[in-house]
């Protein structure tokens, strides 16, 4: 049954519903799907606006409320939202919104919104619809692994269903009209979160980013626009929304991602064969620190967990251990740590708690099976002087461009 939490639903209901959702981890975090070792998740979002109504950023408060009241019931009655949670932004605490941001269910911008905005999401947390973000509707579907086509298909269906009931701002020439001209046309942003530690370790990542930028795709850090690339995680997405069909955009992105996967796999093999000492040192140190630290910041945690994940992919750790590592990526995020604690934690307290959680979760974690992995590797002595110099250039944390969501 749909759980609507609004002004007349009572704050108790809101707390219960949000607890319910926060206690479950998102389906897309399961570490499944095609190419899941390198592609953490695939996301597609569509921006839509009601025809004739001012965009949320320009609308007056009363107009925004009116728009919300018009759209929200239409979103809630979607068959895909039969088991959904629906929250008005002002009913969520800053911490709850931050948890939703960490799960990529709402954008950082939406987390800052108060009255007149809402979010509706399904129980599995694979579909979320923000109302009155930058556009009247920002709908997104998220899947684990490389599943851009599946994510688009699901979202396109939702869009078509809504289109039967509400009149979207559409121009025969310019397509779907959005608040920002950078989204006009399809209103679609497709993106994938890639985990590419070997490209970073072998200093090839800047070359990859430059190449990807050249063909009109954007590369960003973990939380989209203007964020740092932590934990060797990068988001790659389309920039162009006008002049290309949705399917074309997705195919182009898919092709590029498959190429990056190949590069990353090659870089992993090269590290094993030619720079095994560097690789073993990184993996060994991350193991030691994760197992034995008593204070750890979120950046350090992400970077060390990334190396543990790489260790899992390369066979240094058993498959069961992989799941624990995947879960820690989310559980050690600041808001996720705070939500499990009854009192407000200071930064140092959070760092201590983070280290505790990691130590506890990895208590049974066996040391990396170096002998086992290296026995399978054909070690090639490193050739000197033939290595390509790392490219200097753009930093991965893009200062440029519009929102990823």
């Amino acid at each position, binding site marked *: 049954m749909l759980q609507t939490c609004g002004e007349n639903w009572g704050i108790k209901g809101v707390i219960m519903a949000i607890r319910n959702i926060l206690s479950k981890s998102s389906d897309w975090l399961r570490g499944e799907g095609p190419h899941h070792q390198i592609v953490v998740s695939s996301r597609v979002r569509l921006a839509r606006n009601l025809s004739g109504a001012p*965009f949320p950023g*320009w609308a007056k408060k009363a107009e925004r409320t009116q728009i919300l009241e018009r759209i929200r019931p239409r979103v809630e009655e979607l068959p895909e939202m039969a088991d959904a949670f629906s929250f008005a932004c002002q009913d969520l605490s800053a911490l709850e919104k931050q948890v939703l941001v960490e799960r990529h269910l709402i954008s950082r911008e939406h987390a800052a919104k108060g009255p007149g905005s809402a979010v509706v999401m399904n129980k599995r947390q694979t579909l979320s619809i923000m109302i009155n973000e930058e556009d009247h509707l920002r709908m997104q579907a998220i899947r684990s692994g490389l599943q851009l086509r599946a994510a688009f298909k699901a979202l396109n269906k939702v869009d078509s269903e809504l289109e039967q009931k509400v009149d979207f701002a559409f121009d*025969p020439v310019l397509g779907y009209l959005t608040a920002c001209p950078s989204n*006009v046309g399809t209103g679609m942003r497709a993106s994938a979160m890639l985990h590419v530690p070997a490209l970073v370790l072998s200093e090839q990542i800047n070359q990859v980013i430059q190449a990807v930028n050249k063909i009109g795709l954007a590369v960003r850090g973990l939380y989209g626009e203007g964020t740092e690339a932590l934990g060797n995680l990068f988001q790659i997405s389309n920039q162009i929304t006008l*002049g*290309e069909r*949705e399917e074309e955009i997705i195919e182009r992105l898919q092709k590029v991602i498959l190429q990056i996967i190949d590069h990353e796999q090659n870089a992993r093999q090269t590290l094993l064969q030619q720079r095994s000492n560097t690789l073993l040192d990184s993996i060994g140190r991350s193991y030691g620190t994760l197992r034995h630290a008593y204070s750890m910041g979120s950046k350090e945690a992400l970077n060390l967990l990334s190396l543990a994940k790489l260790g899992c992919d390369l066979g240094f750790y058993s498959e069961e251990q992989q799941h624990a590592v995947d879960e820690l990526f989310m559980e050690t995020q600041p808001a996720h740590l705070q939500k499990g604690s009854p009192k407000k934690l200071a930064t140092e307290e959070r760092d201590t708690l983070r280290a505790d959680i990691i130590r506890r979760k990895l208590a049974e974690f066996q040391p990396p099976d170096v002998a086992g992995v290296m026995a399978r590797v054909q070690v090639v002595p490193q050739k000197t002087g033939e290595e390509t110099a790392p490219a200097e250039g753009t930093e991965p944390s893009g200062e440029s461009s519009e929102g990823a969501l």
Partner: protein
Amino acid sequence: MLCDVCKTETASVFLTQIVDGKMQKVNMCEGCSKAKGVADPTGFALADLLLGMGAAQQLERTTPEGKRCPQCGFTQSEFKKTGRLGCSVCYGTFSEGLEPMLKGMHKGLKHTGKCPERLQRTQARDNALRELHADLRHAVVSERYEDAASLRDKIKALEFEA
């Protein structure tokens, strides 16, 4: 080095940013940088940061001073502040300035993707009606009155549907 904005004073503020993988440099004198609010990033033309240098100026140049969107009252100076438009009608209001901007950031100026089903139906009906009207004129001119009567019925039926 002269200021890129006023072209008279010596530049002392150097702004570098990466847009679409391309490095863009803007050099400004102290006065212009203050006027543009560079020292205070929130006051700086956000449209420029978001859409590439020159986006806001482009709209400014092609739009008569004080022009407002008839639907929502939005002005180009608002666009300069936020990089966002006021409503869907703004695309028509400010089309002259928007066109080159869209050209620069997208692939062409024509949407080729999804079209709302409702609109598709309307378009199909409009096309059918246009054809029927043409046929009707021909039928009348060539005195095929029976055909004309049946065409008129078809037109009525379609118009009733609409």
